[in-house]
């Protein structure tokens, strides 16, 4: 049996698939811990696992950390190049510095056999490299978004690489290689077909969506059962807080009194009154809810995208910021949904798009095709098999691979 340490960022969308994979590893008898830089409520962590929050090591960084977390809400007001700058200069790089000491200590104290770092949590791979622990990277988003723009913007690539090299130097690593991602294995939680990646490097392993993380959120199932069909699920994920009122206001404008029930995953308190045909609920058991839906509206957070197509549902994607635009393009290309940019969103268009999705079976058929590719990718079982393989290989082989 092996010890797995997942190194995760303070963003639930990135953490979520690791919780599902971790639960599967625990059920196989492995020891699993997570390490992150914000406290995480115990009920999110699979039974038998442990979440390490290195409070003491983080104390000197609290102000910087809180500033970084607040800045994430500015994403919707940033242009594309500003978002890139926010992500690299103000998020990924400082996050790695902030995490370093606590992570080094955890590795020394616990001695994991394998470190699994999320793709934006650079400290995981860097500390693994320093400590000679094998490392696998997990990527919840379509992979080309991070550290690679296909060579079309050479100065942007150069800027990103210089930032990473500077970070590496700060970790005492002098290398021309980018060491922030594992070059042994990168597990991607989508299918190669949906991601539209041709000829991926052999270390990229597309395992599709994973499931099974604990989610005990309550929901008014009785009300849903009595509700008129079709039913449309609407989620804005966990990150974007400031624009909630505006977004759901437009949703009400579009669907109040329409022949459809809207399940809105948001704090009901943002409005005093909700229309009769709306069920608003703060936290929802999304995986359990999805099979009962007919269509989904979301901004393109990757976990909701995965849940949607795992259930073969069509999607109206309303990209707002970050990697949403890339995901929107993939969905349009696959034919399983319609994309309307948030900045160009009109409630009339939104209503028209949703009834088109519900009425035209081509979208659902395309969604079912994506579902097939997701299932074929192997999910939890494949992810566990790959991680076990990596943890069983002798360390020196990994280190050599890392240094090659």
């Amino acid at each position, binding site marked *: 049996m092996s010890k797995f340490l997942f190194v995760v960022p303070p963003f639930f969308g990135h953490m979520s698939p690791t919780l599902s994979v971790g639960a599967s590893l625990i059920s196989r008898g492995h020891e699993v811990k997570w390490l992150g830089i914000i406290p995480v409520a115990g009920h999110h962590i699979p039974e038998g696992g442990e979440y390490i929050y290195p409070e003491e090591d983080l104390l000197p960084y609290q102000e910087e950390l809180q500033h970084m977390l607040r800045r994430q809400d500015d994403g919707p007001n940033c242009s*594309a190049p500003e978002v890139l700058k926010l992500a690299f200069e103000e998020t990924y790089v400082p996050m790695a510095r902030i995490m370093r000491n606590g992570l080094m200590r955890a590795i020394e104290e616990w001695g994991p056999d394998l470190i699994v770092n999320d793709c934006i949590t650079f400290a995981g791979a860097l500390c693994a490299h320093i400590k000679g622990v094998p490392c696998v990277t997990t990527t919840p988003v379509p992979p080309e978004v991070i550290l690679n723009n296909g060579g079309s913007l050479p100065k942007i690539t150069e800027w990103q690489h210089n930032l990473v090299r500077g970070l590496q130097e700060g970790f005492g690593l002098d290398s021309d290689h980018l060491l922030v991602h594992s070059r042994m294995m990168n597990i991607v939680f989508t299918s190669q077909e949906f991601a539209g990646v041709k000829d991926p490097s052999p270390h990229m392993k597309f395992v599709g969506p994973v499931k099974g993380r604990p989610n005990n959120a309550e929901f008014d199932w009785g009300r849903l059962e009595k509700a008129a069909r079709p039913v449309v699920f609407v989620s804005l994920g966990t990150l974007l807080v400031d624009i909630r009122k505006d977004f759901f206001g437009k949703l009400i404008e579009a669907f109040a009194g329409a022949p459809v029930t809207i399940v809105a995953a948001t704090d009901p308190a943002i409005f005093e009154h909700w229309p009769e045909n709306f069920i608003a609920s703060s936290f929802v058991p999304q995986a359990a809810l999805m099979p009962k839906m007919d269509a989904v509206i979301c901004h393109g957070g990757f976990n909701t995208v995965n849940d949607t197509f795992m259930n073969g549902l069509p999607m109206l994607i309303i990209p707002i910021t970050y990697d949403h*635009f890339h995901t929107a393009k993939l969905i349009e290309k696959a034919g399983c949904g319609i994309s309307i940019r948030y900045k*160009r969103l*009109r409630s009339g268009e939104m209503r028209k798009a949703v009834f088109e999705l519900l009425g035209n079976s081509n979208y659902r058929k395309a969604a079912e095709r994506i579902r097939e590719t997701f299932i074929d990718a192997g999910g939890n079982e494949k992810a566990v098999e790959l991680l076990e393989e990596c943890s069983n290989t002798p360390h020196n082989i990994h280190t050599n691979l890392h240094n090659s």
Partner: protein
Amino acid sequence: MDTIVTAGKLNSNEIFNLLKQFITEVIGEEFVEEMDISMDSSFNKDLEMDSIEIVAFSEKIKAHFGDKIDFTGWLSNMDIDELIGLKLGMIVNFIEECQ
């Protein structure tokens, strides 16, 4: 209509009006009405163009001016701060100089 065929060189004011027309065609009149498009408009921030719209806008420039103006090549050589600071007036100047 995508293109207006003009024989001679355009002055900056004419180029500005032409680009404004392209922007309107790309992002839709109803959204342009809410904007105050000027030479000082930030391409990314004020016009809020996403990558698909920028591609459509680039194609209109190409269709109108032909190969002598390599707008995409010019853009792709920018660094991150140049992209953030890109103003409509800079595109007007670029086109005026390339003509």
